[in-house]
């Protein structure tokens, strides 16, 4: 934030783009936080679109506003101004375990999600178990899980519901190598048709899967159709 490089201008093209029906459209998103040291303008007008099936990368250094953007796009916090149009169903941040209740068993956590998203309970349990391979552990409280097991459960839960768009916040590296391979396959091959918003520092992943990129800097954004160019800019930030 203290860098002396010029700030990004407001991306007018993205801000004024027409909104399509089956898309996610983010327009002029502004988020201020009131802190003891004064108002922090974390996001200062973010605009971009995600069309059906499209994979878009969000690139930005630490402090550029990525996690705030995730919270707004995920719907946890409300923007100070601007809006998010959700024409597709969107997942919570993939593998996010914050919604777990540690004292509840894995099964109860799955049941809760199934109820919340109106999914058949037994089928959801089967799907999650099939993927997370937790077996008997599902009957123990989540607090007794190792962090790897927790991540596997969280990942499997996100995948158990058929979202049109997945929100992925830097957590594709869950579990051991075998599980990583499995989750990559589940996400990028079996769900190739799904839209994704990918927030990652892993240039390799972004290069292999994303179509476009949004570069975030000090609360401003710019959409790049040319992925390589975006990565170049990001590396130079």
């Amino acid at each position, binding site marked *: 934030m203290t860098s002396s490089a010029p700030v990004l201008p407001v991306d007018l093209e993205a801000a004024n783009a027409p909104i399509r029906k089956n898309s996610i459209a983010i327009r002029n998103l502004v988020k201020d936080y009131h802190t003891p040291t004064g108002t922090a303008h974390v996001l200062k007008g973010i605009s971009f679109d995600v069309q059906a099936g499209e994979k878009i990368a969000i690139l930005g250094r630490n402090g550029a506003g990525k996690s705030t953007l995730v919270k707004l796009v995920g719907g*946890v916090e409300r923007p100070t101004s601007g809006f998010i149009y959700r024409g597709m169903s969107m997942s919570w941040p993939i593998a996010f375990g914050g919604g777990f209740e540690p004292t509840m068993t894995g099964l*109860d956590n799955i049941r809760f*999600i199934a109820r919340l998203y109106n999914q058949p309970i037994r089928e959801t349990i089967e799907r999650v178990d099939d993927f997370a391979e937790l077996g008997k552990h599902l009957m123990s409280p989540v607090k007794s899980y190792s962090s790897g097991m927790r991540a596997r459960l969280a990942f499997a839960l996100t995948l158990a519901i058929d979202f049109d768009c997945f929100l992925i916040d830097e957590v594709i590296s869950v579990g051991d190598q075998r599980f990583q391979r499995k989750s990559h396959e589940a996400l990028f091959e079996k769900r190739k048709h799904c839209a994704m918003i990918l927030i990652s520092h892993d240039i390799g992943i972004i290069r292999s899967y994303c179509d476009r990129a949004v570069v975030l800097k000090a609360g401003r954004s710019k959409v790049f159709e040319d992925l390589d160019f975006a990565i170049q800019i990001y590396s130079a930030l």
Partner: protein
Amino acid sequence: MYAMGRQTTGQKLRSKARTINALLVRELMVRFGHGNIGFMWLVGEPLILTIGVMGMWTLLYGEQKHGVKIMPVVLTGYSTLTLFRHIISRYVNCFRDNAGLLFHRSVRPVDTLIARGLLETVGVLIAFFVAYIPMRLLGYFDPIYDYSLLLSAWFLFCFGISGFGMIVACICQMSETAERFVQPMLYLAIPATGSFFMVAWLPESAQKIVLLSPLVHCNEMFRAGYFGPSVATSWNGWYVVTWALVNNAIAWTLVKRTQRHIEIS
């Protein structure tokens, strides 16, 4: 299904009901789990307290006080007091406890409050009847005189207290200092609940003062439903209704504002 733009009111209501139902079951599991008698504790917790106090009072004051059987007075009073204490202490930490759930877009902070409120409303009422029925069968208690009055008093009370609890929860969300005052206030508020006395027992000057408290009206109304005209009660239903509505009007406005400012770390 996932808040996809335009929905009919019916769809919205159904999806709200589903969310609250899911939260309710979750709340039950979190608090009581599957172990031993599980969610029967929802009833068991308030029951232990009520029965204990009923026994103690009977030992201390004998079977009757001012010509009224003491046990039903304690049962009615303690049920409302338990509800009052439970709802407020459950609401205070509600936003913080459930912040992680907000990544599920169908869950709004207010839904978590509603789920907790419903659970207490029903749980403590069941506890009331679980204590009442055996005592009735054993002949210690007279039958409830007017169920409709008793239940309207109960639900009005729950509605009003829920509004009050929401206000307290919002204030605590804004200021951590306020949270420190909640437990002492709950304790100091006990005389204002009217749980431990009947208005008719007090001298007239004191009656005027306690009848300023809508909680006293609720308790008297609840007892009027229980005892019927054989025991003197003083309450004004409209006072209670007005109080409950005003509480909720303030509460919902505040919650709406607070919801916008909830941040998760």
